């Protein structure tokens, strides 16, 4: 599906630009896009280096497994295929907690680390395992308690009550996360041959 979306963006973009007599825009946009891709990755370096260092300390101190034990019921339900004391669970928990607190730049490194741990359990290294898909679903719909950036923007434009969207955002994010979990479950069931919730 990613292949098709990618192709769709480029081909349709080209056709529309040509139709509008504006093909040069494609060249400019392609190189601008490439540049911003690299810029974003470079921005990630500092965050990743710092948090992965921090999380290694936490892992060595046994903090991550403690965290995993604490929230085991939730994680067992969402990730039935991951063995009980696997470090992946600790990273998944820290990723989810960081998301909930709205700590975006801490959530990404922990999510990546969780993915790396899940990759160790993955039989086919090219293809996403069901556990990876679930983790991704949780992150794309990420539950957020406080949308800090938006409150700041609303303040900027003199909102009478900048935080009034906290409630609506929370309900919307809960609904989209619930949808993500349900759809993920549905796909997982329909893909796996016999034992439904495994894998």
């Amino acid at each position: 599906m990613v292949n098709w979306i990618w192709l769709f963006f480029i081909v349709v973009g080209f056709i529309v630009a040509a139709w509008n007599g504006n093909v040069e825009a494609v060249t400019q946009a392609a190189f601008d896009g490439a540049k911003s891709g690299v810029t974003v990755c470079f921005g990630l370096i500092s965050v990743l280096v710092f948090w992965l260092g921090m999380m290694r300390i936490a892992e060595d101190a046994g903090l991550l497994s403690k965290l995993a034990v604490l929230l085991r019921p939730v994680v067992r339900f969402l990730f039935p295929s991951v063995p009980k004391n696997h470090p992946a669970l600790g990273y998944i928990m820290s990723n989810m907690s960081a998301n909930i607190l709205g700590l975006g730049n801490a959530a990404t490194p922990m999510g990546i680390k969780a993915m790396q741990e899940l990759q160790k359990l993955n039989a086919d290294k090219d293809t996403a395992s069901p556990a990876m898909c679930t983790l991704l679903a949780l992150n794309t719909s990420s539950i957020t308690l406080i949308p800090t950036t938006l409150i700041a923007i609303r303040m900027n434009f003199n909102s009478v009550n900048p935080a009034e969207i906290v409630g609506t955002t929370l309900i919307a994010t809960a609904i989209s996360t619930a949808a993500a979990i349900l759809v993920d479950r549905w796909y997982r069931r329909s893909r796996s041959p016999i034992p439904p919730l495994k894998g």
Partner: protein
Amino acid sequence: MYDIVSLISAWAIPVMIVFIPLYAAYRKVPVYESFVDGAKDGFDTAIKIIPHLVGMMVAISVFRASGAMDFVLGWLRPLFEQLGVPTEVLPLAFLRPITGAGSLAFTTDLIEQFGPDSMIGRIASTVQGSTDTTLYVITVYFGAIGIRKAGYALKVGLISDLVGFVASIVICYLVFG
């Protein structure tokens, strides 16, 4: 509620930065060595993401700059008008899953234009705040570990984005309407 949560958010990182090494030292972990050891992976991971992210950003950038995005939106506008929903927020449904910076810029623009306390401003804020950029998350997470076949993950992400978008509009009308 808002005060408590924002207080927790403000304290979470500083407390973690102090608590993790302190607890580890108590458990006799060589903290600095551990840090450096773990941090080493950060650079490689970030570099591994570059090809994935460049590929995605190029496609998105071409799609937007060519005017193709506006073209697609023009088609959908009448449908939205029939539903009685302000068409101004429609582009967000498309921008939100594919570009975080783009949709944030668009939301800011709507808030500036219509005011943060207008229905459009509230819907835009809710949509922007309630989900993450699906395509970016997939690219970064799967890129970092070299997954090429994303399976059904993308579909799950996009469906939940759509659900979140519709839910945001409905909830804003119920709460503020």
